[in-house]
């Protein structure tokens, strides 16, 4: 304890010492310590310094970055208007190069301050102080102050804008609870304690906008980021060119970024793959397992991977028969041959999962045994249900999904493995767009859920009463579950949180609406000439500012 100086304590969160202790006792992992410490406002540097006093200040850069060059990536591009309304990561990839977030969750899934120099949470986690970074200019020349931040926050909470932040930040209790202390200091008074604030600040619609923002990013691409939007044509391309006066310096002492130009060209996954292989693009965005297979031995390709909570839950609508009966749901869950699925759909790349939307990549994940493939038991359950309902097996059901990433493979495999379990699954596989039109409507479907850095971000979004009509595609909610979730959001103690998670996981496994075979291992396949880029669990291109090209 004594090693912590008083002045440190002044800012640092009172929980930090305890955290340190836990770490020293080996109750929390190194990674978890770093996450939580930084989360609570301890500067990353300090945190690193604590756990490994003798570690070098900065990992040695392999080589001095080269400047210049155009970085190309094939990626589908759709409509962008109000950043706060962003609903898809591709769009965010473009926006985030121009505008930035208050916090920054790194590839290591650790969240650090970014546009705010630091934040401090009260003990009860209901009051958060955000200290805005000074001297940051928007690319239209005006200086960023608390006003811009507050303006942006108001946009998030403005019903008219309709941002998905609105749901996420429900615990903020509306704009009136945002207090401007001074030009560079904002205080948030939360209605309910929440540990996720920094993470939430990095939720992809959350870029900081100039106070005079009119509502269309394409008309008004003003932000603090390293790049300037030169051209945006939906369905065609986005061209970004380096900004000269970016606030962050590169290793060579000059302002970032190293790249001259960033170019996103809209193309289908297949076209993208071809383009990458023929050297037309530098990055193959969002590679599918098949792409990995195609590229893993490609001499010019470099594969960056990271574990994530990206997944393809098989979700069942609990408001429609037969899925309203838990026996049927459980039966289907039992019908998953997880290993086979992982093999067929992802060539074994990924982590086997339990039937809960909580991932090992999430902090405080509670380790559970992977359920075995048990068609016999499934059949019994189903038999019981069927005889009750006067149906006969096999039970005919229709599984809808999109012919996009690994879904078809998962579907095909399930169809097969579920046969023994008494399910006769018809497949209804359409193009991605076709599925997104009805993803909340189909009674049985496979929806892809993107990575979220903590479980408390996704669970409220999809498995609570409030979220019905928005993101709750299964209409499933459970009072006990919701209650526990509230606690979890307010619970700082990792151990305690873990124990809550255990309960949550149990509930979902026991009566939840999703069957889940594996967690995707996110990978980024880049050309060897690309340096300083890292795979991010969210598939976001978070590190382009420090990416550079060699030859």
């Amino acid at each position: 304890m004594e090693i912590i100086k008083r002045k440190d304590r002044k800012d640092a969160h009172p929980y930090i010492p305890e955290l340190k202790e836990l770490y020293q006792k080996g109750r929390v992992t190194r990674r978890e310590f770093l996450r939580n410490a930084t989360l609570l406002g301890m500067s990353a540097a300090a945190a690193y310094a604590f756990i490994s006093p003798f570690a070098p200040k900065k990992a040695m850069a392999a080589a001095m970055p080269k400047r210049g060059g155009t970085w190309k990536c094939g990626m589908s591009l759709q409509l962008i208007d109000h950043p706060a309304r962003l609903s898809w990561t591709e769009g965010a990839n473009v926006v985030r190069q121009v505008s930035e977030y208050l916090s920054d969750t790194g590839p290591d899934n650790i969240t650090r301050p970014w546009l705010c120099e630091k934040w401090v949470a009260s003990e009860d986690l209901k009051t958060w102080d955000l200290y805005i970074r000074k001297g940051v200019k928007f690319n239209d020349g005006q200086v960023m102050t608390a006003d811009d931040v507050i303006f942006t926050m108001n946009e998030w909470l403005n019903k008219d804008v309709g941002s998905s932040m609105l749901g996420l930040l429900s615990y903020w209790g509306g704009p009136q609870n945002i207090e401007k202390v001074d030009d560079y200091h904002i205080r948030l008074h939360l209605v309910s304690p929440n540990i996720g604030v920094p993470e939430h600040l990095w939720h992809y619609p959350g870029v900081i906008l100039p106070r005079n923002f009119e509502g269309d990013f394409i008309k008004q691409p003003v932000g603090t980021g390293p790049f300037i939007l030169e051209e945006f044509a939906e369905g065609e391309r986005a061209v970004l060119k380096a900004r000269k006066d970016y606030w962050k310096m590169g290793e060579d002492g000059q302002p970032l970024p190293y790249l001259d130009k960033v170019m996103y060209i809209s193309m289908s996954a297949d076209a993208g793959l071809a383009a990458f292989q023929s050297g037309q693009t530098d990055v193959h965005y969002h590679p599918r397992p098949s792409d990995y297979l195609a590229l893993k031995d490609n001499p010019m390709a470099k594969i960056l991977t990271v574990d994530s909570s990206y997944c393809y839950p098989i979700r069942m609508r609990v408001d429609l028969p037969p899925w309203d009966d838990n026996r049927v749901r459980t039966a289907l869950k039992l019908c998953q041959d997880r290993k086979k699925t992982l093999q067929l759909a992802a060539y074994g790349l990924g982590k086997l999962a339990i039937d809960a939307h909580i991932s090992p990549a999430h902090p405080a994940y509670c380790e559970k045994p992977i359920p075995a493939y048990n068609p016999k038991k499934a059949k019994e359950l189903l038999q019981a249900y069927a005889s009750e309902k006067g149906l006969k097996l096999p039970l005919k059901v229709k599984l809808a999904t999109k012919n996009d990433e690994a879904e078809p493979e998962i579907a095909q495999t399930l169809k097969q493995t579920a046969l023994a379990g008494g399910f006769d699954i018809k497949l209804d596989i359409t193009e991605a767009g076709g599925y997104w039109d009805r993803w909340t409507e189909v009674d049985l479907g496979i929806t892809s859920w993107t990575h979220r850095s903590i479980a408390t971000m996704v669970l409220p979004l999809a498995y609570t009463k409030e979220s019905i009509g928005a993101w709750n595609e299964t209409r499933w909610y459970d009072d006990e579950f919701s209650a526990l979730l509230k606690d979890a959001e307010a619970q700082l103690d990792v151990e305690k949180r873990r124990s809550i998670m255990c309960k949550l996981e149990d509930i979902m496994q026991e009566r939840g609406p999703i069957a889940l075979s594996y967690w995707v291992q996110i990978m980024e396949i880049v050309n060897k000439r690309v340096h300083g880029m890292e795979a991010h669990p969210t598939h976001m291109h978070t590190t382009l500012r420090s990416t550079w090209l060699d030859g």
Partner: protein
Amino acid sequence: MVRFLVRSVVSTIITILLVSIGLFVLIEVGSGDISVKILGVFSTPEQRASYRAQLGLNAPTWQRYLDWLVGNDWRAKSRMTYPLITLKNPKTKEVEWWADVDGQATRWKMDKGELKRLVRKEDGFSKVMPAESDWIKGEGTEEFFWGVDNRNNAVKFVKGSGEEVWVLTKAGLRKQGDGPREYIPLRKGLIRGDAGLSWQYNRPVSMILKPRVRNTLVLAGVAFVVVMPLALFFGILAGINEGKLLDRIISITSLGATSTPEFVTGIFLILIFGIWLKVLPAVTMFTSSNAIFENPMMLALPVMTLTAVELGYVARMTRASMVEVMDSAYIRTAIVKGMPYWRVVFRHAIRNALMAPITIIMLHVNWLIGGVVVVEVIFGYPGLGKFIFDSAIFGDFSAIEAAAMVTVLIAIITRLIGDLAYTLLNPRVRYA
């Protein structure tokens, strides 16, 4: 001949009209209640009704058809106090509808029952001003006003009774007071180059469409220019060597080529030239809107793909008609007249032999367009075909309607050209 031409032009116009009707009916009616599709099944009947009103979907189909085809601003004009004008948004270049109030572009909204003017400033944004004076006495005590709202609708506000309307925001539907009583979603209509708004991109279809059409025309054009001479050459070559080895070779290869789907040819061309040999760009990357001109090489593979399929077909056509011509009586005459073989072929045969293929080729253009769809999808070529495909998948109706109309237009026009070419080639028609 005059008669022939006039006839074909007239019939072309009728055809286009028929097509447009068919298209409209098929989509607008065939696709059921669009509001459900947009608002989702969560939406209540009341919400849908309100939304349909805003889209003008409550109007009878024929009216919507007319609006779609020739626009409805004239309908709005007759009701409105101030003249309608269209302005280009300086940033997006989109066309916006405003009313011209003594030189100032103006729109209106109701705020707590009070009519407000939104007067446009140079930078494209607008400032709010009171406009209570604009009310007009209607029959009885009712006071109303026809103006433009900021969703490009001509709307009828009624004093004191703001409608409760459901407005669609990205966050979903939201109930809003102070709504207008009636809507006319302003549009210039297809024939005036306004194909409405694309739901997928939330931008005017015509704006997105223009570059796509250009790209496709370039692609198809190049393919056409490459294919035709080759095809005709091989066709004629085979034709005059009927039954000989050369004929066999040409015929069989061309049959093989036509019978291999574009998508297969395309894939393998990419694999071989783009990836294994790396001699040609595997896909078409539009690094700028003029990429095709800056880097024409990227057309190579798509064109090759189209060629593979088209070449064979046209060649077979040409061959057939060449064979037919070659054993016609007048060729016999020419030979018996002691004309040298090549003179017979070039002076006497070819001209007649080309008549049939040319008309067929022109009729065949919509087959070519079909191919273009596939090719564009494979090569990620941002053209008309891919656009239609995407819109169809997305269910972006106004986009499909417009795009389909364009393809049909192309098809019909080329056919017309075919007719012309035929008349020019065939004196029987020319002097009939």
